């Protein structure tokens, strides 16, 4: 090390160049980190490739008349009626939202606008526990408790699954998701807005309804969009409590059993060691997967837009 006195105006460039070994080591570490970050991109590419390459074979070879207007979804017999799956997906998602939207948003409003900090400290972790419950547990609960104790009282059958039963189960599963995104949106509303409203003599409820909710509306919409996406992709609850296995006849009644897109995929893959059936059965799995992937991706992108709008606003 040079001392100040021994380097009169003539420190060499080499002295400040840094050890090449260290520079190399840093570059290596930086590359390794980059590769770690790249894994996600590779995974995405592989998902897209896998979906498209197999789905393409399906789309090329399938008799398209078997995908529309048939009596139902019988993949092992070469009948791939998409409306069957779409109607079931719509029903379960709709029912799920009828359950999750009021419960999730109500919980969020209470936590954000009414609960004292001490209550929040207890209530939030409980909601987080609900969020952590595996979907097979909800599937079991929907089939063995909700069906006889709830669905049976609103016109359904208690002894077996149905789209209604599955929809309620999926709804419960998405309550924490709706609650947490909605609460984040309301937390982002500046305190000054609330104080201004309170300053004009508005009560808490009025402030909430007239000021906080309109200000947070993008986030509330986002929470619903993301929840719809999640409900569309939910597999196990519908697989267990949807009232159909392997194949389904097209039905428009939520009291019947049917298959949604993901539960149809799980049905096709389970039971036997291999996906067997008519020639395109295996590829149909990827075709349905592709449709589901594109739908949820679109919803998530729109949902992200809304979440970002909240962030930009305040």
């Amino acid at each position, binding site marked *: 090390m040079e001392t100040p006195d021994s380097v009169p105006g003539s420190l060499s460039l080499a002295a400040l160049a840094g050890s090449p070994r260290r520079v190399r080591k840093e570059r290596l570490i930086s590359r390794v980190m980059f590769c770690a970050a790249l894994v996600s991109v590779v995974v995405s590419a592989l998902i897209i490739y896998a979906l498209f390459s197999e789905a393409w074979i399906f789309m090329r070879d399938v008799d398209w008349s078997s995908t529309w207007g048939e009596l139902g979804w019988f993949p092992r017999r070469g009948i791939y009626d998409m409306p069957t799956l779409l109607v079931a997906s719509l029903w379960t998602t709709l029912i799920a939202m009828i359950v999750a939207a009021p419960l999730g948003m*109500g919980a969020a409003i209470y936590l954000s606008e009414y609960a004292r900090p001490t209550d929040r400290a207890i209530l939030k972790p409980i909601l987080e526990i609900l969020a952590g419950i595996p979907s097979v547990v909800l599937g079991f609960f929907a089939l063995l408790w909700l069906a006889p104790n709830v669905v049976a009282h609103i016109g359904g059958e208690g002894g077996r699954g149905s789209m209604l039963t599955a929809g309620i189960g999926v709804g419960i599963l998405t309550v924490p998701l709706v609650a947490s995104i909605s609460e984040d949106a309301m937390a982002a509303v500046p305190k000054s807005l609330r104080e201004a409203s309170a300053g004009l003599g508005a009560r808490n409820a009025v402030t909430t309804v007239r000021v906080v909710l309109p200000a947070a509306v993008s986030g509330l919409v986002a929470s619903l969009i993301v929840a719809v996406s999640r409900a569309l992709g939910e597999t196990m609850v519908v697989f267990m409590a949807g009232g159909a296995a392997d194949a389904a006849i097209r039905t428009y009644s939520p009291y019947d059993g049917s298959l949604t897109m993901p539960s149809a995929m799980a049905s096709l893959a389970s039971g036997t060691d291999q996906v067997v059936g008519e020639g395109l059965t295996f590829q149909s799995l990827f075709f349905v997967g592709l449709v589901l992937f594109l739908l949820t991706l679109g919803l998530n992108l729109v949902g992200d837009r809304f979440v970002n709008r909240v962030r930009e606003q305040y």
Partner: protein
Amino acid sequence: MTFSTIGTVARRGANGFERKRTDVAGGLFKAVILSALVVSLLVLAVLLIDTVADAWSQLSTRTWDFLNGSLRSRSIDDKLGVKQGLYGSFWIGVFVALTAFPIGVGAAIYLEEYANKSRLAAVIELVIRNLAGVPSVVYGLLGLFLFVERSTIFGFVGLGWLADATGGRSVLSAGLTLAVLVLPIVIITAQEAVRSVPSGLKEGAYGLGATKSEMVRTQILPYAAPGILTGTLLAMSRAIGEAAPLILVGAITGGLTRNPELWDTSGLREKFTALPIIIVEWVSERGRDPGFSEAAAAAIVVLLVLVLLLNMTAILLRNRFEKKRG
């Protein structure tokens, strides 16, 4: 200041002087809102109580046998139990920790400290956010494609070696598939933890001549460790509870005769099952043998204990450090 003072006065006015005109609408609103929360909590309570009640017949009399037993064709069987599922779920957790943890933390550090807000980094971030929203069953398709089907990419990059290395429909394949599934969770939580490191610490290290990697090792990793750990625990709990991808990768629901010890690594490339799969299987068996619904409930209790332990550890860890740092 002025706003809040007026606010207090106004509120006092409402409560103090106009008490006769009670706020019916406001009270009703609050009641509705509160009931939403109460219903949610009630559902959770009913779910837990009902499941434990159903599970009681199995767990009260033969907990240890149940934990050590295997898949059986009848629900009344001394050897019925979830050991094979525990084996699968345990190793899935291990593989998730071994792969998603280092890759996720590396990616988070790259994005927060190395990427310099480049366009590429923005693309990677977008990809990660979207991956987080891909349905789990689609990850199952990826696992099926990569590890089981001996596929090729564009006709020439063969993936057969992956199937050979993992044993195809095996715990190893399942673990890797779920590691990919939870990777975005690990990355996003780790990014938040890395972002929370005070810039003063980073500058202090740089100012003393630390290189970037030294700064990361000595400042970021120690400070962000609790946050990173929380994210990893949540990810593991998510992975252990997942069933859909396992069905697609080919978890076995019947005819699994091996029942290896937890530490026996020879079963990693063999046919496998996992706790959630056993639950699904037993629920479907209950039509034939109603006793299986109790067995399924008992398996759920075992799964919930594992998942909630991981979750609560994560939540407690996070709350403790949030409080500590004010």
